[in-house]
Structures are given as structure tokens and as C-alpha cells.
């Protein structure tokens, strides 16, 4: 096996450029004769636009052109990639999402006008001279108010603010209700999954360019999926065919979901560059990011679990209001439905489940997928409710969970919410986490905390997630307007080196290191002989990009299939060179051998023959060694795990300190343990951030209160403990060739309930009878709960 093959903690090759300041992020790109755009954004949440006077601004120094909605009359709106069908079989309500506000402003931050000028300061100066004539309207912010009869409508042309009312599985509803009537115990919990801002450290950037000589447009953008942007923007917004449009996402400084979506600024820069025949650049400030990047989560839910007299879960039902914001962002409708409802079984055998989701329009920034996307919302409800249930019943929360686990012998397991888990071993991760977190020693530690005046608590949460999205035929039935395969071209050069062109995109995940490990393993060459190309539609095959922990499971599988094709062809060549039968050829450690003989030929000799086909079976195969594969998964993958958090609460101030965090995950096979652990660290940190710190809050007028880092609390180094991670419990995925499941989102899914459960444990075991505190568990909220 090569030293940097599957299973090796190979150091990341991409680090060298990032550590020396030679990375190339979108904002590092400056094109000749480049112009700058500044967007005049709405500072009110809801208003009718009676007119916009740009005359004073037009004459200002450096101004090249000012764009308003009327300049986009022939241009499409930003498309939504998923159509959800409601419980009556009707399609969701789908308003137009214009590039620049048409007729009405619907959220703070919406683009009202765009100033293109020679310098950014000139554009910004001129924007201040634009006078929109606005008639302010009442803002719709609270979801339950929004769907009340007679509420102000965000979109005048829709029947109401209800995007859809989704029931799943509608046919099960009566049986679920009946089970609740027969239950020996019912636990009910109402909770909020707080609105978040993804906050990758690199703000979004777009640079549009147009080449008149070839009539080709190019967009450089901070995207997780350049091909998706090319398709959406080209086909639905600007009407540019793919062969005249190139989208490049170079080094991207984090995504976490919010760089999946197609944004107005991308379409604007591409459009304006063609109109003006000069490159147009936009760089978001962080303040702009808060009011223009799609937000995440924002669910208000009520969950109930029914149990029989032996504490077996017999039924579960949940009602959720899901905030869509003012418009439907690219994948927004799918998040509270197909990424949330279908995960409500969790790790448990609950036989009857009914999920209702009402998606609601409000005068807020659009809400879409953020790390975990739907699965954290499902897990949080379930794991919080089970914890409350254990407290009500006076039983050990770990044991109540264990009792209701799907058992290892039940896989594949079909849940009552339409998915089939292929593999898993929930007992194993629970046991591993209990051991690593030294739960047995907790009581002694709690006593020690008491002596120092602190309240100590321990919280457990399990999670299951559906990753590796997804079988295209399945998601097509569910309303996806895209396929969700992935692609790869494996090009072998004459001297034996390999270039993999993947549709996946790395923005921190380390594909440039891990993907070569797989190829190195398959061929038996050194990983340094393999190069990964990604992020440019001009030199990668059509692929769907990176999100939903799918890169290795789907993109890696595509690469595996393409490499298999390459190897099969290479074996044919080797057979010819060794005058042997193709069926007897084996490839190991970079050598082709003939079974049962001492004949061999090196990988490099075969690849050279492929390109210098002097002695070559030209009558049977073509020269060259390059193959492409598109991989469409047969099922989701289902990573799972158990997370344990230990906290201390300062009774005087309500301050929570996270003392330790343990994550025992089952990701199936692991290609690079170092990178997998790093993904868990980061996910857990974001989960702790959601549970303890982060809160995207609006006031009743639709003004964003947490609009900068002065009010949106980001986790910092001193807020977090060292994180204990384990991935030794491995039940490999049964349906992809690598047996991998995906690890990017797990931490963000499992951490919030573990932490909140720990804080409530600390309070309840120390005489504060508190059922629930909504995230984030800020000192003020915890103190208020203790002193209610």
C-alpha cells in the first residue's frame, strides 16, 4: 500500500499556499479595466417603491452606470431548485425573486439599485445620492403572525404568506393520533431552532467578465458549486447557454451551505460586465453579508413523543413553522421537508411518525441550508424531547435511548418516514462515548464543582443524518429540479501521472489531499503523482458540487468509477504488452502482473504505451487513457453517533462553560483520519456556537439586531474546549464503492442538543426545575431561567 493511501493521515498539500499567502481567493482576482459595483440596499424591511431618482448620482465622479429594476426587465428571477408539494397535493407558492427589488422592498438588505463606478469609493459615494421614493409598509416578522388571517402579505400576488403546509406521512396521521390516545406517557416540548448566519470567514465576492471576441461571459465567484451556478444563472436568469458561460470558484474561504445558492450579485456582475464591456467586481463587506447571505435554521416547533408503559416509543409527531424569509432561496423549500421530516425517526424504532411543516414568508433575509440543513432541526427536537421525557419518567437518559435504539441486527432498517438506513450500530457509538467521556466518574466531578460553587451537568445526544445526497430519481419525485449525481474525469498522462477533474469543490475540506489518496491506493502509485482539478466549469465535467457531506461519498465514488474504467483499459494494454490474457492481469503497487507468472510491466510503461501506441492493440481499443464517470448514488448514506457534553454553570451570572466534549461517530470507512477529525472539530464548534452564542435576531420592524460581529456572537478560541473525537465504530456504507458516509455536518447536528441537555442537567440536579431554555443559552437567558 502506498504511504499516502486510504487510511493515512496525509498532510494537506493545499496548506502550503494558504500558509504562505499565495492562495488565490476570488477577491484576489483583479482584471484589467475592472469596474466596481456598490449595491444600494434597503434599510427598511417592507416598502412600496414609488420611484427611484438616480439623476443626482449619475453625474458624480467616476460613475459609469446606475442600474435599477427596470434594467432587468428582460431578465429572469433567481430560480428555486426545489418544488415542495403540500399536504393537499398542491405545489408550493413560489414568488418571483428579482435581481433588483421590483415594486416592493421585502427585506432589509434587498438590492434597490446598483452603482457601477471606476472605484469602489466613488460607487459608494454616488449611492448616497440615490433617492428612492418609498412608502413604508408594516413588516411581517413573526411566523405565526404572518399566517394569521388578514396578515400583511409579503407578496401581494400570493394568496397568503404560507409557502406550503406539508404533511408527512399524511396517510399515517390518524394512526399516529390514535397511538397518542393510547399512550401511557406523552412528553411535549416546544422549542425554537434559532436563526443563524453561516459566516464563512471569506465574505462573498463576484467578478463578472465578458469577452467580446468570443461572446463568452465568465463569472469568478465564491461558490461551493460552480456548475450549479452556471446552469441556474445561464438557463434561468440571464439566458446564456452553458458553452458561452464559464463559472470559476477558485480558493473559497469556507461555505457551510451559504455559498451553495445562486445570488443576485453573481447575476448582476455577469450581466453588467456584458452590458458595459468591462469587468465588474463586487466584494461583500461583513456588514453586507449579514443582510444578503442566506441565513440558516429558524424553526419554531412543537414535538410530542408517546410511550407505552414499558417506556418504548410508540409514536411521534411534530409541528414546525419554518421561516423562508422574503423569497425562496435556491434550496430553501427542501430543508424543512425532505432534509428534516425524513430524519425524525432518528436512531430509534418509533413505529409511527407524523411531521407537519408550515413554511412561511416574512420580511427577513431568505433562509436556506446551513451546515446540517434540516437534520440539526430534526435531531434537536428529538434529542431534547427524549431528554425531557427521561427526566419526567425518572429514568437514565442514556438508557431510555438505548432501549429504543434500532438494533444492529435490524439493518437495513426502513423507517416510517420513507428512508432506509443501510447500516449503523448505535449501541457501539453510545458505549464508546460513555467510556471516552468518563461518564462513570461524573458524579464525583459534579461534587467537586459544587465545592467551587459551580453547577455541573452532563448531556447526551445521538444523531443520525442522511448524507451523500442523493439518488436523482428519488429526489426528482420529491420535487428537486436538479439531479444530484457527481462526476469525475480521470486523465492519466503519458508518464503515469494522474489528473482528476472533479465536479466536487473544496472550500476547506481538503479534496486536493484526500482524493489523490484514493487514486494512489487503487493504482499503487504515490499520491504526489495525482493532481486534483476543481472549481472551474471550463475544465471539469458537469457536477453538482459540495454540500450535504457528499464530496467523498458521491464525488469520490464518481472518481472511483472513472479510475476503475481507466484501470480496466490499462489492464487491456498490459495484457497486450505481456502477451497474456486480460483476465489474468493484476494491478498492485503500480505493477501489472500476470497471475501465476513472474511477468510484470510497470504502470508508467502501460501509460506510455497508451499515448505512444507503437506496440498497441489498436484494433481493439483506442489510444489514450482518460475516462469519465457520473455516479448517482443508490441511497443516502447514514452517518450516526453519540455526543456527550459536560458543562459548568455559574449560578451568579448564568454563564455556561463547556468543560469537555466527546464525539463518537460512525462515518463508515475513513480515508484521512486527520481531516475527518478536523471536520468534526469544526462542526462541533459551530454546534456549540449555535447552542451557546449565535443568534440572528430581528426586531418587530424587521430590522436586523445582530448585524455585525458586535452583536452576532461568533465562537472564539477561549469559548471552546479541546474536543475528544473517535471514529473507530465503523459500519461501512453498503452502496458506494468506498464504504464512506460523510463527516462534514455531524458536529453541527449532534452538538446543540448535547450541550443544551447538559445545561438543563446542571440546573435540574441543583434545584432549578427548568424544562427548557431556547438557544442560544446566553448568560442572560440561563440566569433568567434560574430566577424565573
Amino acid at each position: 500500500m502506498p504511504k499516502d493511501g486510504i487510511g493515512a493521515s496525509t498532510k494537506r498539500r493545499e496548506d502550503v499556499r494558504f500558509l504562505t499567502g499565495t492562495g488565490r481567493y476570488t477577491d484576489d482576482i483583479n482584471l484589467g479595466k475592472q469596474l466596481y459595483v456598490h449595491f444600494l440596499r434597503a434599510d427598511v424591511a417592507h416598502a412600496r417603491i414609488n420611484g427611484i431618482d438616480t439623476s443626482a448620482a449619475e453625474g458624480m465622479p467616476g460613475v459609469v452606470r446606475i442600474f435599477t429594476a427596470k434594467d432587468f426587465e428582460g431578465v429572469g428571477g433567481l430560480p428555486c431548485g426545489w418544488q415542495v408539494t403540500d399536504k393537499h397535493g398542491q405545489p408550493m407558492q413560489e414568488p418571483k425573486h428579482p435581481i433588483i427589488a421590483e415594486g416592493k422592498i421585502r427585506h432589509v438588505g434587498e438590492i434597490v439599485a446598483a452603482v457601477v463606478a471606476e472605484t469602489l469609493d466613488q460607487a459608494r459615494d454616488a449611492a448616497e445620492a440615490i433617492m428612492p421614493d418609498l412608502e413604508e409598509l408594516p413588516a411581517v416578522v413573526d411566523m405565526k403572525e404572518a399566517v394569521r388571517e388578514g396578515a400583511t402579505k409579503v407578496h401581494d400576488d400570493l394568496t397568503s404568506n404560507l409557502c406550503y403546509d406539508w404533511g408527512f406521512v399524511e396517510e399515517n396521521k390518524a394512526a399516529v393520533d390514535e397511538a397518542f390516545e393510547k399512550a401511557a406517557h406523552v412528553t411535549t416540548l416546544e422549542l425554537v431552532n434559532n436563526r443563524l448566519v453561516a459566516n464563512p470567514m471569506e465574505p462573498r465576492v463576484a467578478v463578472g467578465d465578458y469577452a467580446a471576441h468570443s461572446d463568452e461571459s465568465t463569472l469568478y465567484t465564491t461558490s461551493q458549486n460552480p456548475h450549479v451556478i452556471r446552469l441556474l444563472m445561464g438557463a434561468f436568469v440571464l439566458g446564456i447557454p452553458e458553452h458561452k458561460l464559464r463559472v470559476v470558484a477558485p480558493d473559497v474561504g469556507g461555505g457551510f451551505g451559504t455559498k451553495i445558492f445562486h445570488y443576485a450579485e453573481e447575476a448582476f456582475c455577469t450581466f453588467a460586465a456584458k452590458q458595459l464591456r468591462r469587468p465588474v467586481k463586487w466584494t461583500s463587506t461583513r456588514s453586507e453579508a449579514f443582510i444578503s447571505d442566506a441565513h440558516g435554521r429558524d424553526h419554531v416547533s412543537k414535538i410530542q413523543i408517546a410511550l407505552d408503559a414499558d417506556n418504548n416509543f410508540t409514536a411521534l409527531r411534530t409541528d414546525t413553522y419554518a421561516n423562508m424569509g422574503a423569497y425562496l432561496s435556491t434550496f430553501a423549500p427542501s430543508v424543512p421537508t425532505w432534509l428534516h421530516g425524513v430524519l425524525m425517526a432518528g436512531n430509534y424504532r418509533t413505529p409511527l411518525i407524523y411531521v407537519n411543516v408550515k413554511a412561511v414568508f416574512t420580511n427577513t433575509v431568505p433562509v436556506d441550508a446551513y451546515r446540517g440543513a434540516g437534520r440539526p432541526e430534526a435531531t434537536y427536537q428529538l434529542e431534547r424531547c427524549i431528554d425531557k421525557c427521561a427526566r419526567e419518567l425518572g429514568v437514565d437518559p442514556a438508557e431510555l435511548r438505548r432501549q429504543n435504539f434500532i438494533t444492529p441486527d435490524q439493518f437495513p432498517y426502513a423507517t416510517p418516514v420513507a428512508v432506509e438506513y443501510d447500516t449503523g450500530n448505535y449501541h457501539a457509538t453510545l458505549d464508546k462515548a460513555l467510556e471516552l467521556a468518563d461518564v462513570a466518574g461524573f458524579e464525583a466531578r459534579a461534587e467537586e464543582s459544587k465545592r467551587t460553587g459551580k453547577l455541573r451537568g452532563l448531556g447526551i445526544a445521538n444523531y443520525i443524518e442522511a448524507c451523500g445526497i442523493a439518488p436523482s430519481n428519488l429526489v426528482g419525485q420529491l420535487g428537486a429540479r436538479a439531479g444530484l449525481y457527481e462526476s469525475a474525469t480521470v486523465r492519466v498522462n503519458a508518464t503515469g501521472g494522474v489528473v482528476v477533474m472533479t465536479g466536487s469543490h473544496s472550500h476547506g475540506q481538503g479534496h486536493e489531499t484526500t482524493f489523490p489518496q484514493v487514486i494512489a491506493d487503487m493504482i499503487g502509485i504515490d499520491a504526489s503523482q495525482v493532481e486534483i482539478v476543481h472549481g472551474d466549469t471550463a475544465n471539469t465535467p458537469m457536477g453538482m458540487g459540495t454540500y450535504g457531506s457528499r464530496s467523498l461519498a458521491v464525488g469520490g465514488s464518481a472518481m472511483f468509477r472513472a479510475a476503475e474504467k481507466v484501470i480496466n483499459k490499462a489492464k487491456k494494454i498490459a495484457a497486450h504488452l505481456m502477451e497474456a490474457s486480460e483476465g489474468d492481469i493484476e494491478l498492485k503497487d503500480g505493477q501489472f502482473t500476470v497471475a501465476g507468472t513472474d511477468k510484470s510491466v510497470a504502470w508508467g510503461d502501460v501509460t506510455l504505451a497508451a499515448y505512444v501506441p507503437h506496440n498497441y492493440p489498436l484494433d481493439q481499443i483506442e489510444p489514450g487513457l482518460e475516462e469519465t464517470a457520473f455516479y448517482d448514488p443508490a441511497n443516502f448514506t447514514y452517518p450516526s453517533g453519540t455526543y456527550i457534553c459536560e458543562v459548568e454553570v455559574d449560578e451568579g451570572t448564568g454563564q455556561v462553560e463547556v468543560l469537555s466534549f466527546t464525539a463518537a461517530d460512525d462515518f463508515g470507512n475513513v480515508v484521512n483520519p486527520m481531516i475527518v477529525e478536523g471536520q468534526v472539530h469544526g462542526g462541533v464548534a459551530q454546534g456549540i456556537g449555535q447552542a451557546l452564542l449565535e443568534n440572528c435576531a430581528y426586531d418587530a420592524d424587521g430590522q436586523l439586531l445582530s448585524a455585525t460581529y458586535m452583536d452576532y456572537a461568533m465562537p472564539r478560541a477561549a469559548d471552546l474546549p479541546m474536543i475528544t473525537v473517535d471514529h473507530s465504530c465503523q459500519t461501512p456504507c453498503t452502496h458506494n464503492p468506498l464504504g464512506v458516509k460523510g463527516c462534514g455536518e455531524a458536529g453541527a447536528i449532534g452538538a446543540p442538543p448535547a450541550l443544551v441537555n447538559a445545561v438543563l442537567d446542571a440546573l435540574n440536579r441543583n434545584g432549578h426545575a427548568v424544562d427548557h431554555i431556547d438557544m442560544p443559552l446566553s448568560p442572560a437567558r440561563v440566569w433568567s431561567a434560574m430566577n424565573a
Partner: protein
Amino acid sequence: MKVTMTVNGKSMSGEAEGRTLLSSFLREELGLTGTHVGCDTSQCGACTVHVDGRQVKACTMFAAEAEGTDVTTIEGMANADGSLNTIQQAFQDYHGLQCGFCTPGMVMAASSLLEQNPKPSETEIREHLHGNICRCTGYHNIVKAIMAASGQDVPAVAAE
């Protein structure tokens, strides 16, 4: 106005307005794009550089204020032969970066810490990174990398 400073050991000049930030001057005037800008409220620290040997946020200082100073950016951190310096190498060895965007600031902050405090504790490292936000790593491996760069034992975390 013309502004002149020593950047990574070389005297460099460029044009600046009064309002030109040091971060913009480095990125746009001098083409040193390794210094990143991640916020506009002086909190994220992606723009951290050294001015006269002390770490500052290049986005919260005017280029004109750096007139005549000695500035070090991430581009000036590698060894003379181009290889990664001790801190940079430790970041790679311990996977102290993912997307790489905050990384220049982290390296500059870490280097400043180790100059003042060659053997910092885990707590001191975390405190020193107060003004450097990372969204990818949970800081876990950054702390380990700085520990390692200081020649100390890296904290053992179970199951690793």
C-alpha cells in the same frame, strides 16, 4: 499622497488617500493579497500583520500611519529558502487550517505570541487568539499547532 514603508524587508512605496487602510494598501497597491479582510468591525483578525514587530489589524490602521514603519505580512514569514517556518510547518503538521482564509492572521498572531511568551499554556494560547476568528477548525488544531511550534508537548486528546 505617497506612502513608503519597509514590507517584508524591502522598501516599498505606493499611493494612498487619507482613508486608505493598511489592509487595502497591502492588497491593492502592493499586490500582497495574503492579508485577508473578513470583517469591517475590527474583530475577525484575518488581516493581522506586524508593524514594527507588534501585531495589529491592518484593517484598523491607515496606510499613512504605517509611513516609515517595518511591516511584516504572511508573505514574509517563510524561511529564506522558501520552506515553511516553524509555525507554518506546525499548522500543516497539525491540520491547523481548513479553508485557509483566517490562516494568515492566525500565523501572524501565533508568531507574535511566541515572541512574547515562548512556552504558552493552552489557556494563554486561547486568550491570545481572542481577536482571531476561525470558522472551520473549532481552534482545536490551531491550539495544538501553536503548542507544537513552541516545542511543547501537544495536549493529548483521547482516541487520537
